[in-house]
């Protein structure tokens, strides 16, 4: 034993030194390093979870966005279609109105013309009667009394009208 250099004091010294190192490294190295490793693993796990969550959220938002866009497009199309329809209806109405107005005006004008013609005719008729009497007087030289003449002419004209 002595030849090998083993002596209790040295053995104890080395044992204490080594035990001190075990304790010291446990406090100073293993514990903090393992805590850090665990913390980092936890962080990474959480980070990955968060990333997955965020991706899901983004996907959902994208979906929502697309849905909204589609809805808006549909709505827009509906509005345009409605407006087109309405304007068409309005056009038809205005056209109808214009046509009716025109017809009404034409009818009114025609009536006025008829009235005027009738008036002119009756005037003409009166004048023709006067003229006829005058001519007859000139030719016959005698004058019938005016009332009889007028009756005669009226009869004649009626006949003529009937003939026509």
């Amino acid at each position: 034993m002595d030849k090998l250099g083993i002596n209790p004091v040295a053995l104890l010294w080395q044992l204490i030194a080594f035990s001190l190192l075990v304790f010291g490294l446990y406090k100073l190295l293993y514990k903090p390093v393992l805590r850090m490793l665990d913390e980092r693993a936890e962080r990474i796990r959480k980070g990955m979870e968060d990333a997955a969550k965020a991706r899901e959220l983004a996907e959902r938002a994208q979906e929502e966005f697309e849905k909204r866009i589609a809805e808006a497009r549909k709505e827009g199309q509906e509005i345009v279609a409605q407006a087109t329809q309405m304007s068409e209806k309005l056009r038809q109405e205005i056209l109808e109105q214009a046509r009716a107005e025109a017809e009404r005006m034409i009818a009114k004008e025609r009536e006025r013309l008829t009235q005027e013609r009738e008036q002119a005719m009756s005037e003409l008729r009166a004048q023709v009667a006067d003229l006829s009497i005058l001519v007859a007087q000139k030719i016959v030289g005698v004058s019938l009394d005016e009332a009889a003449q007028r009756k005669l002419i009226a009869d004649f004209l009626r006949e003529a009208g009937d003939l026509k």
Partner: protein
Amino acid sequence: MKIHAPLAAETIFHLGPIPVTNSMLTSALVVILLLVMAWLVTRKMQLIPGRYQAMWEMVVEFLLDLSVDTAGKKVGRIVFPLIATFFIFILTANWMGLLPGIGPSIYVEVAEAAEHGTEIVRVPLFRAANADLNMTAAMALLSITVVQIAGVAVNGVKGYVKHLASPILLTPVHIVSELSHIISLAARLFGNIFGGEVLVTVMYSLVPVVVPAVFLGLEVLFGFIQALIFSVLSIVYIALATAGGHEENGEPAHAAAH
């Protein structure tokens, strides 16, 4: 040429009643160095590690994996500080022993008791810590003691005794086997490091250039291998001592049948 390579560590001075040897100095130096290094790593730990922190994290994780993979999650985690310290201390001590200044390079003169009065002898100031049987025996004793404690803790006193005495006739063999583990662990490490030191010293005296460098390179490798062997064997012994408990817990019917 006479090469002086004593097996025993030389006493440098006395600290009160304690004779302080050169290997005790070195081991104290290694302990202080490692504690300072550890303090430097964990003083301000970063979530995003620098290179120094990353290296230590790698070492710690490697040793934790070694413990847990061999002895199971529960036991492995408990004995991990011991196993890891075996590895880190032995590796550091071995590699430090290769540095100039440690081993036969810086000498001090001390008085030594001789046959006729005292004699002044030149001894190296520092001696590789594991080139002293006291160091390796201390660690081996600690290792095997922890093996027995782990065995009792996991299997209970009854289980531990049964493990040691099955069959009854082989009980002495088991006890000798446990004790031999201490000797084998201590002697293997001491022999490798002391032998390596002597080898390098011999090479220096034979061919002072180039050749010793080759052997120093080999010593770097051996230093690592010995650190690994010591810690792996320790955790394997612990795993063997605690394995019985797992079996019994797994098969209560089988245990009851005995």
